[in-house]
């Protein structure tokens, strides 16, 4: 039965993965989400579970225990921690909005710390590679409308970006390629993933063999003869066939994932993939895209880059931005035990860091800003519940291809729960008072 308070909101932006699908239809009633349709199961789960295991007040650790606190006390305590720290790190930013990243950058400058985002161990190596050789890229719209060859390399979008294949690549209905029959799809991976099951060709590379295989493929595209019969587990004739397929397509797209960035070689794997696509553009049209994970990680990198010049791992401790991945990046700083305080926002550090990094994080005061109760909250000194960007709070985010999208909140946050931007600005305001004595 339809009641007056029930409302259907169309074209809602999904705040789950970097695809940021903007075609959701969300039904709300009395400030609650009833259904979230058109998206993937992860999307619908994100909307429907937004009020599960959710703290509604801040917490401050006293005598070893986290105790409920007022918002003002939590802001004051956080400002004290950050103002007194010699080398704080402000980490996360992948699951919030660009406005929050901007506030975080100003806060980092005031406290003389480091700001790093989740790209540091996601597509950070892709950014390093693109700084060296450039990236022949475009928008997902171009892939959707024009691509007749789609390659996913080290990426399993059926699980990581569930609607990516349907909206932007092999299964999408584009202006110039309107059906699956007009596109070829190839998956390169160490295992036959569920994405590989949708492909015309699956090429199984040995673990850590991507660099070799990409180099061999690049040789084949350039017309050089392969001296080995098998490269990284792939017979030479299959490499030559794939090279021919890439050269002969009208418009190719290579989407790559953490299979390249997190295995041996890291940015060097991406470097050769970018170079391969550059070579291909002498023969045909080809684009390459990193499969960015968190819904606004592209925004976090871009905002950081246009304010400081660097996309992640930015050290402001000298009063100006410095960038040296492997030195000014979160895991390296924690491994050296260099930082003496941390803010974790829009990320769950304790669940995602190597154990040693989590152990060292637990030894310093952590300010956690997160809608849900997370393992990071368990080791925090101050915990702020925050509102969900894209569900309860608006803001601009960047899709994985850098297209800016305005989110469309559908319900109000619970009473007393502030947005990431409000929390950061309030902490910043108190830090300024403590630093200037005014």
């Amino acid at each position, binding site marked *: 039965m339809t009641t007056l308070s029930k409302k259907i909101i169309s074209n809602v932006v999904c705040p789950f993965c970097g695809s940021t699908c903007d075609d959701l239809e969300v039904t709300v009633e009395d400030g609650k989400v009833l259904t979230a349709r058109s998206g993937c199961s992860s999307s619908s789960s994100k909307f429907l579970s937004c009020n599960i295991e959710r703290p509604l007040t801040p917490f401050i650790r006293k005598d070893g225990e986290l105790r409920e606190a007022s918002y003002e006390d939590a802001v004051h305590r956080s400002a004290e921690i950050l103002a007194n720290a010699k080398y704080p790190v402000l980490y996360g930013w992948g699951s919030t909005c660009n406005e929050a990243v901007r506030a975080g950058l100003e806060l980092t400058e005031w406290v003389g710390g480091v700001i790093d985002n989740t790209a540091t161990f996601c597509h950070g190596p892709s950014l390093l590679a693109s700084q060296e050789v450039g990236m022949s890229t475009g928008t997902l719209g171009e892939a959707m409308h024009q691509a007749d060859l789609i390659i996913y390399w080290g990426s399993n979008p059926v699980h990581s970006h569930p609607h990516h294949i349907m909206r932007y690549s092999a299964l999408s209905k584009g202006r110039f390629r309107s059906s699956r029959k007009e596109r070829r799809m190839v998956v390169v991976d160490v295992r036959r993933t569920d994405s590989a099951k949708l492909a015309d060709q699956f090429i199984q590379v040995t673990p850590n063999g991507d660099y070799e295989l990409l180099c061999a493929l690049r040789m084949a595209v350039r017309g050089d003869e392969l001296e080995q019969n098998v490269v990284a587990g792939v017979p030479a004739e299959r490499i030559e066939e794939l090279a021919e397929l890439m050269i002969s397509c009208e418009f190719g797209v290579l989407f790559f994932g953490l299979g390249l960035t997190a295995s041996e070689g890291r940015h060097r794997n991406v470097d050769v993939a970018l170079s391969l696509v550059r070579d291909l553009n002498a023969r045909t049209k080809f684009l390459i895209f990193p499969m960015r994970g968190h819904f606004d990680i592209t925004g976090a990198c871009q905002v950081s880059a246009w304010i400081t010049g660097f996309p992640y791992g930015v050290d402001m401790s000298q009063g100006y931005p410095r960038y040296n991945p492997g030195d000014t990046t979160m895991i390296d700083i924690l491994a050296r035990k260099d930082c003496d305080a941390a803010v974790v926002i829009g990320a769950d550090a304790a669940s995602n860091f190597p154990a040693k990094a*989590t152990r060292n994080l637990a030894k310093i005061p952590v300010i956690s800003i997160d809608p849900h109760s997370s393992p990071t909250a368990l080791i925090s000194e101050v915990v702020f519940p925050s509102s969900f960007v894209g569900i309860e709070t608006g803001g601009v985010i960047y899709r994985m291809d850098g297209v800016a999208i305005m989110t469309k909140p559908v319900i109000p946050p619970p009473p007393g729960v502030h947005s990431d931007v409000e929390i950061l600005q309030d902490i910043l305001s108190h830090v300024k008072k403590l630093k200037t004595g005014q």
Partner: protein
Amino acid sequence: MAVCELSPEDLGALGITHGQNVKVATETGSVIVRAVIASQPLPRGVIFMPYGPWANMLISTETYGTGMPPFKGIQAEVTAAANDKILDVKTLVEQVTRG
């Protein structure tokens, strides 16, 4: 998330049954998880663990100058551990932070 996916051939070769607890160890550390037959086929000699607190017990903080720890393509050893218990996430985090 406290699982380790293996090929049916590797499970058989190790004398492990689907659902049995195993110990996965790397140069960095070890963790007890449940062994399951891979939902997406794996070649022999390759295991898959989902990203999260259990897998992170096995990951080094060495980033080789990139900021990125070695999350993929690392050497690991799997052994049966039927009598060992899988820790829940809270206990695991507490164990990690105690060092």
